[in-house]
């Protein structure tokens, strides 16, 4: 019961992008294509899980006033692991995600979960939390990327969707990202409100 709850909360009720409003920079920047969004999800979830595990393991040995630098160091290490690995085995993903791979370090989701959850809970439940949060983050990115790739480039996974349709190029660049996310948040708010009314 509790495991299910901890996992699901990251998807909906505490969705990092849609509800907590964190991790926005990658959400806006890398969602030009669904495959970018999925790779971002994998990279972030990996870092999140690893850092959550390590933080919950060492939490008792760290003096509380230096915990933030320690957490950052741990996170930065895992980010670099991801960076190097992608560079070696997925060079195309490495180029298209670009600067946003090192910037996973400053994604507030990761530091936030380390601080708020992993440093207070056991290893197993921390993994569940990380997976839930990572997938919740990734899911939002994927939906956003779906709209942006289909409308902005008439493509899905790099392949043309409807021949002859002229895509709105704006969706593929920054303004499209902002506006689409804004409209998604609006839709989300409406759904949440009508749900509350039903309850």
């Amino acid at each position, binding site marked *: 019961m509790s495991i299910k709850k901890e996992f699901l909360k990251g998807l909906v009720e505490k969705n990092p992008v849609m509800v907590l409003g964190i991790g926005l920079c990658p959400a806006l920047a890398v969602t*030009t*294509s669904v495959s970018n969004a999925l790779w971002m999800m994998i990279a972030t979830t990996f870092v999140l899980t690893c850092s959550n595990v390590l933080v919950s393991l060492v939490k008792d*040995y*760290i*003096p509380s*006033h*230096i915990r933030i*630098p*320690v957490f950052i*160091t*741990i996170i*930065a*290490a895992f980010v*670099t*692991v991801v960076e*190097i*690995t992608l*560079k*070696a*085995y997925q*060079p195309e993903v490495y180029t298209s995600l*670009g600067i946003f791979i090192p910037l996973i370090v400053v994604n507030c989701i990761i530091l936030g979960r380390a601080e708020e959850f992993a440093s207070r809970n056991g290893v197993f439940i921390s993994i569940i939390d990380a997976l839930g949060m990572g997938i919740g983050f990734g899911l939002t990115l994927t939906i956003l990327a779906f709209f942006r790739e289909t409308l*902005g*480039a*008439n*493509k*899905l*996974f*790099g*392949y*043309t*969707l*409807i*021949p002859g349709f002229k*895509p709105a*190029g704006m969706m*593929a*660049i920054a303004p499209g990202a902002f506006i689409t996310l804004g409209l998604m948040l609006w839709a989300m708010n409406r759904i949440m409100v009508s749900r509350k009314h039903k309850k």
Partner: protein
Amino acid sequence: MKDIIKPAAVLAAVTFCASLLLATVFAVTKERIAFLDSEAEKNALAIVLPGYSITGTAKTKDNKIYWVGEKTENGETINGFAFISESPGYSGTIRCMIGVDSNMNILGISILKQTETPGLGARSVEIASKNTFWDVITGSAVDEGIQFPWFQQQFAGLNGNKTVQVVKNGDWTPEMASDLVSQNAVSAITGATITSKAVVDCIHKGISEYNDIIKNSNK
């Protein structure tokens, strides 16, 4: 005293462990990354200096690297040169590798880095697959073989001493090629004139920068 030493020690230990981990990962992947880099360079050089064998690199006065290649044609050895140049595009810098012969005729270009709008400026490096998403998921996709972006292809054969003109004729087709070469022009990517011009600028910049060096090295 203990208040300082313990945290410092913990922090040092964590940093040390992290560095150790990274060093290991780096050591494992080092060769592969180096291989990928050289491969990328080789590929680019093969495009911009087609048929030339690379004889080595040289440096300009301000430490910029350029490549020298040669090939034998009709019993004569011809030199080719390749260099890298940059110019601001629609969003962010565009980096190109440009190959020229000693008369500054462009042999080929390769865009190494760009962050242009997908679907518009980014088409300068994209090869549009004729297969649609539905073809792919229904398994009816056709293998199209290795292709080269038409935008970059147009530059081969242009005269680098003269200004390369950007014309808006709609997207490039092979039929347009001879006409464009006679005008010393390239056809802009539809809707991405800024990107197209930026690439041309990039080439002009590079050629003017290396013009003297290459002429001198020829003598």
